[in-house]
């Protein structure tokens, strides 16, 4: 807007009248004189300032896959969604199965400074009347979904988020959970190679057909090993039958069982239960450490809402947790022990981190002779009770033990199905099956090497 001569600078009005530089209004027509360059620069900087309103950090992303996975994420979102900032929740289901689902999906409130994490549902497209009963078919369903990457990007999974933890919840007995979950995690890793991935895998119950155990074994093998390494940094195995047997006590004194107990475990993992208190819980750190150690499969052991007055000390609570592991564990082979402890603030002085660490070390030594690493993450809640939540994650036991039922089911199922029909009926080839067995064996062998 300002034209410059060598000597005299002039400002031009909207009617092209020349005025001395700095004039506010034209002396001929009276119209205001605007410095266009300056106004443009200001306008652009003000648009750029909008970044403060559109920059969203998604540090934790929760994905539930398949019917059971969706239920777990839905339950978790309802219980803890409000206290988790910088998080996002997604349920992924095959379009056929979703027709029976009754998830309550909250829409994000608009015009709000802080948006609570919202829950969304993504349907993997499938033809009507088709069944996704097997791992291979579930994987194919996810593989054929052209909108999957976009859905994950919309969740905020992208390479620019360097500190991101993806927590995937899935039951591995069904086709969608077992087959789609590894592929989805593969896409997560492709979209954000920095992301740390935790899988909470519900293993099928003993009375489920061999096909369910077959699915679980196939899925585990993919989580534990792909061409580019393991998909899951931490794989928490939860045996359905064992989960049904244990109980916990919630912050309000209510009984916790089944999905709500699992939901509580996830909340402890991500530090959601503190209710305004402080938390050291960092699932990303656990994932990082597991990756660097090469130990990925863990057995969770829970002691939720244990009264300190009744149990007498942290050692007894640890024992209580260890007495009911959610998957088989061999104490001799445990190499990594992660302990997430939540104590009420009012008891912080009697249960100081230093004391807890000392007691934990002593207990670890007595129970796990081959232990190579231990992490304690302590949180304090504003609860007025004397109840302590403890979540023990034990890694290092061979999958041949931890997932024995899945392996046995896999072997039985494999033998009864004719080889020629593998690909068409179940979406896997005999070559795939060999690779799967090899993957699990290879993981177990590495653990053996580390132990020796």
């Amino acid at each position, binding site marked *: *807007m300002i*034209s410059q001569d060598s000597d005299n600078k002039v400002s*031009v009005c*909207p*009617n*092209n009248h020349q005025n001395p530089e700095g004039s506010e209004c034209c002396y001929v*027509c009276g*119209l*205001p004189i*605007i410095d*266009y*360059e300056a*106004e*443009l620069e200001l*306008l*652009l900087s*003000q*648009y*750029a300032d*909008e*970044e403060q*309103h*559109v*920059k*969203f950090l998604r540090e934790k992303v929760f994905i539930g896959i398949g019917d059971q996975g969706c239920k777990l994420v839905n339950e978790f979102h309802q219980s803890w969604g409000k206290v988790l900032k910088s998080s996002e929740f997604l349920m992924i289901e095959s379009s056929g199965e979703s027709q029976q689902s009754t998830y309550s999906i909250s829409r*994000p409130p*608009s*015009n709000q*400074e802080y948006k609570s994490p919202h829950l969304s549902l993504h349907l993997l497209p499938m033809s009507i009347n088709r069944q996704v009963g097997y791992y291979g078919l579930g994987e194919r369903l996810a593989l054929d979904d052209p909108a999957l990457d*976009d859905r994950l*990007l*919309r969740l*905020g999974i*992208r390479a*620019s988020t360097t500190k991101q933890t993806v927590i995937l919840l899935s039951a591995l007995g069904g086709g969608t959970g077992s087959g789609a979950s590894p592929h989805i995690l593969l896409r997560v890793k492709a979209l954000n190679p920095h992301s740390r991935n935790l899988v909470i895998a519900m293993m099928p119950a003993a009375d489920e057909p061999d096909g369910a155990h077959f699915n679980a074994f196939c899925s585990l093998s993919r989580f534990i090993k792909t061409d580019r390494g393991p998909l899951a940094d931490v794989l928490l195995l939860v045996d359905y039958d064992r989960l049904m047997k244990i109980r916990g006590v919630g912050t309000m004194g209510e009984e916790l069982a089944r999905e709500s107990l699992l939901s509580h475990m996830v909340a402890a993992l991500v530090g959601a239960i503190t209710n305004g208190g402080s938390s050291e819980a960092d699932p990303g750190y656990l994932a990082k450490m597991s990756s660097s150690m090469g130990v990925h499969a863990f057995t969770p052991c829970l002691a939720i809402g244990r009264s300190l007055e009744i149990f007498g000390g942290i050692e007894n609570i640890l024992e209580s947790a260890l007495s009911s592991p959610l998957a088989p564990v061999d104490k001799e082979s445990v190499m990594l022990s992660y302990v997430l402890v939540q104590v009420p603030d009012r008891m912080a002085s009697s249960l100081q981190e230093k004391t807890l660490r000392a007691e934990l070390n002593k207990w670890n030594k007595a129970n796990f002779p081959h232990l190579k690493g231990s992490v304690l993450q302590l949180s304090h809640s504003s609860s007025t009770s004397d109840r302590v939540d403890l979540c023990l994650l034990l890694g290092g036991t061979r999958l041949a033990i931890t997932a024995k039922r899945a392996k046995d089911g896999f072997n039985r199922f494999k033998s009864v199905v004719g080889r020629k029909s593998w690909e068409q009926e179940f979406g896997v080839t005999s070559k795939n099956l060999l690779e799967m067995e090899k993957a699990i064996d290879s993981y177990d062998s590495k653990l053996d090497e580390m132990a020796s």
Partner: protein
Amino acid sequence: MNTNHDDITTDLEEEKLLAELKNVKLDNVGKGKLSLTDRRIEFEHRSSLLSPPRLEFSVDLGEVYSARVKDTSNTLVLEWLDENGERVVSTLNLPEGDAATSLCRALTKKLRILRQVAELQERRACYQSFLWKTAYHVWGIVGLLSQIVRDLRDEDWDTVDASINKARETAKVLTLECGIDITDQVHALADTVSTRDTALVLRSVVATIESIGTSLQNDLPPDAEWQEFALESQIGLTWLDMRYIFLFAGRRRLLSLWQESGETEKIEDSLPRLVTLLSILADRISMGSQLESSVGQDTSSIADSVESAAQNLETWLKINTGTA
């Protein structure tokens, strides 16, 4: 506006007689007087010496679309359209001599000048259409880009995708018809949108807005066809007005974003700027704005007046581009 002004000026000037010729014979009528002024050509016929003269035709030169002189027969053939739009052909036999030649020359010259003036007026009208169209699309694209910024706040990607498709179309028109080429930026923006990275998309939106703003920085329109008109002093929109429409469009949208997030300081800083831009635009376009009396009004009333003026401006842009 320009044409009306010219007409008024012309009406005030006295009509000048350029040539007059007697003994001209109009086919099927008879002899009479042919007069040529700087505005019209007319033929008067008198059936007898005592009878009063009768005007057979009087045609505005602007209506005459053909005047052919057949030198061999000294015949002038005039063609024009009557008030019903029907073609009228009049054949006039002129008496031999210099006077007839002189009238024919004067007529031809006058018609040529009139055609040139008409062409110029038509091109001026086209230039105005070009400016209205440019203003409309600049207004539109800034609106779309700002809407994207708004939707990024909610991460409403479906709406962002829809806006991107519209922005692509508008960018195509801006490039092809207005000489403002932002297709590369809009393509890049569309690519960025597919990453679903809000911060990256915002940066790409800002780069696109910058590109539009920079295109308007030149004092002349990018298309050489319109540059001579941009230098003329004329009534109606000017090329420089595109800047003010652009700035106003952007500021108005930012104001609405800030109102939503309650950013009072930014709103208070922005309103006087919007009022200034409006005062410039109101000089060109009637926007029914009452902002001239905005001094002493509270922030909310000024903002309401700005929004009302913006809506009127948008209506004007639509009307003048035939999209209303």
